[in-house]
């Protein structure tokens, strides 16, 4: 899957959770939870949605690799064929 498609998918799922945050305004390299003002419940909702969409498990042990928007995109790209 192309980087663009992955980023579009993340942006769509983030929009469901945080419709008030414009992706153009956030620092994609900074902490995702801070940038989108999401809590642990929101993050779990995001991971659940992306995991279904990409058919990958996204284990909790890998959460550290999903700290920012960019890191999450890279993670998903690496873990989906």
């Amino acid at each position, binding site marked *: 899957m192309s980087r663009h498609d992955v980023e579009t998918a993340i942006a769509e799922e983030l929009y469901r959770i945080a419709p008030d945050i414009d992706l153009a305004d956030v620092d994609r390299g900074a902490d995702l*939870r801070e940038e989108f*003002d999401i809590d*642990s*419940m929101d993050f779990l*909702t995001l991971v659940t949605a992306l995991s279904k969409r990409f058919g990958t498990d996204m*284990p*909790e*042990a890998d959460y550290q690799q999903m700290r920012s928007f960019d890191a999450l995109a890279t993670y998903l790209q690496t873990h989906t064929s």
Partner: protein
Amino acid sequence: MPSLGADMEAGTLVEQLIAPGQPVKRGDVIGAVETQKGVIEIEVFEDGVLETWLIEIGTEVPVGTALAVIRSDDEVAEDIPPEPQKDVQEPVTAKPPPAQVGTRPRITPAARRLMAQMGVDAADLDIAAGETIARVDIETRHPRAKPKPQADMRTAIAAAMSRSKREIPHYYLSHTVDLTAADAFATRTNAGRSPEDRLLITVLYAKAIARAVGKYPEFNGHFKEDLFHPSEAVHLGLATHIRGGGLVAAALLDAEDQPLDALMASMRDLVTRVRAGRFKARELSDATITLTSLGERGVDQLYGVIYPPQVAIVGVGTQRMQPVVHEGQVTARLAASLTLAADHRVSDGHRGALFLRAIDKFLQEPETL
């Protein structure tokens, strides 16, 4: 004439909002008095029928003077109160009544505040001379004055929290809880699970509280009509932050009966619905105790304000690695501050402390939850 401050000796009745013969409910504003501190609304404290006003508008009377007669619902209809004895009730300093009837509209303080907030001028409203304008009239007459949902939520929070701080004598306790075991349990449980079945540590807090109130029932229930009514069921209110501002504390119903995985599913469902603005009236009205957790990006400690008519709120600060003495050594452990704000009319600090320790004990043995 109520005393609205130790330094107040007298007040002037400036508004009568309820006509004789009309029913009143506890909490209704029936009039307003002018004091040195400004115009203050008068609430009634019982249900009944306003029989008669004893004091005319514009009259200054000393604190303690009866303003009106309210017949409570309990009193039989035949029991007609004696005619007010006008000569005995003669006010000390009778001023000529201000030009109130037939000249300019009377606008209640609450209505005046709303008009000021909304930037509505009295001239914009179609008010007949001598008419009394209450807050609700402003809302119906002026479309611009219709408050937004956000403002409604703030108003509701303001009302509940003001009532809480006015009526409930809170006491506060704090206790540091080691979360190493709870965190390890969640990590272990989640390791083989797909995201939709994973636990959050918050559900462990919720379950620990639900279990602990079984032993300490004086923290779970409602305080109504000067009596505490303990609840058999634990309907655990979850203080949930709403994006864009506001807070809703809807309840996880029957939290004590639900196994951990079921409770986690209920919590996800509840938080999702609350954030979408869809919840049942019962989930709001029936909460028997509330949990407020600052989550991952908060600060160390919070002391909650009890949601009336509940009698306790448990707070959990943000968990972080901190120096803790563990087995005789100062080590870095994952810990958080557990707090209790509880109603002193119902419980005391001693029992409150035991209650917090019981929650702590359950969090040390998460597999038993």
